[in-house]
């Protein structure tokens, strides 16, 4: 896989998307192999891919002082170059950007989705929520990862479509998950990125293997990390949950009436709760009552 990426084009599938990655940089190719090695690798020729991605060194004079990397998607460079050490995080951010700006065949909610016993829990992302930390803890303790970043729903459906990618952890969460889930495969820590220190948790192999299995909406849980607080579920009016989902969607407004009816279906199918937590063991026990 790494050799394929370095040699020219690596074509692979994550959930509903097929992508081609071109890069002659060794570091991101090695990490793609290590962290996405369970994904289905496709023949580069003859595929109709959703995204054509490239990581390359920009041809600016700055490269003689400090090597940089730029992300290219469909020939466009949506971001400013970053230090070459940030190539893999840039690839992950770039793929997020590609999906969020083009995959309008789905309603895309900015949320993690996990599943157990056929019941999917949507965890919308809000700053300071601890969503990724909680998601990483759950998927290494019996829950299936559908996504850490995208709640993908086909219009009119109440089923979440898996998109099992790496879970990016930031700052203190990195060591927290290393200690809490030592079985988690993690990439290196990228220090002082634009989002602070970042490390990526590999999607569990079982979640990748089941990437074609959708999961039915059962809960919408708004996590909120609050230091020192006992884990507990609190009520939230479904109307308020509805509005929160609308405002944290990548493409709700683009979807128009289909976005509204899809969110309405999800809310009808789900119990909605706030979840305050600080301790991962406690909150995992609480989540097990949902499954």
């Amino acid at each position, binding site marked *: 896989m790494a050799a394929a990426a370095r040699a020219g084009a690596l074509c692979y599938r994550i959930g509903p998307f097929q992508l081609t990655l071109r890069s002659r940089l060794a570091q991101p190719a090695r990490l793609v192999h290590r962290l996405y090695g369970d994904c289905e690798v496709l023949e580069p020729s003859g595929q109709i891919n959703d995204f054509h991605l490239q990581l390359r060194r920009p041809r600016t004079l700055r490269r003689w002082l400090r090597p940089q990397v730029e992300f290219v998607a469909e020939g466009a460079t949506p971001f400013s170059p970053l230090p070459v050490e940030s190539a893999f995080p840039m690839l992950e951010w770039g793929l997020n950007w590609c999906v969020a700006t083009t995959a309008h065949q789905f309603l895309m909610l900015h949320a993690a989705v996990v599943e157990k016993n056929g019941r999917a829990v949507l965890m919308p992302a809000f700053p300071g929520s601890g969503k990724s930390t909680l998601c990483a803890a759950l998927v290494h303790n019996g829950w299936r990862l559908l996504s850490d970043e995208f709640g993908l729903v086909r219009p009119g459906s109440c089923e979440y479509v898996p998109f099992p990618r790496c879970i990016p952890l930031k700052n203190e969460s990195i060591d927290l998950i290393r200690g809490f889930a030592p079985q988690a495969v993690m990439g290196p820590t990228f220090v002082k990125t634009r989002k602070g220190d970042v490390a990526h948790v590999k999607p569990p192999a079982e979640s990748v293997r089941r990437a074609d299995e959708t999961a039915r909406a059962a809960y919408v849980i708004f996590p909120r990390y609050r230091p020192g607080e006992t884990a507990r579920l609190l009520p939230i009016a479904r109307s308020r949950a509805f*509005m929160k989902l609308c405002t944290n969607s990548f493409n709700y407004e683009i979807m128009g*009436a289909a976005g509204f009816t899809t969110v*309405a279906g999800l809310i009808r199918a789900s119990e909605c709760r706030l979840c305050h937590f600080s301790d991962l063991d406690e909150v995992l026990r609480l989540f097990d009552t949902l499954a």
Partner: protein
Amino acid sequence: MTAAAGERWCVRAPTGRFLWEHLDEESVVYDTRSGQTHLLNALAVEAMLRLQAGDFSLRALAGELATLCETPANDAFRADLVALLRQLSDLGLVERVDGEH
């Protein structure tokens, strides 16, 4: 805030314009004309549903809603209703028939 009891309010082009989701004691409405989604309380919903069905004078609308709320349709209630209608008007959901605000 002053309001003439005879002023008339309406919803323009109401047929098929709104998608509703009634949840608990509040409702979410999608306005296909603006593409906006709004969270409305029960009184706003009742006002909207009546204005969707046809024009209402402030006096008549206040009378119906006051009955629903089991409260007198006095000046204070009408003033609250005007404030509500102006909020709904700011959201582009309802309008004064004579174009005033």
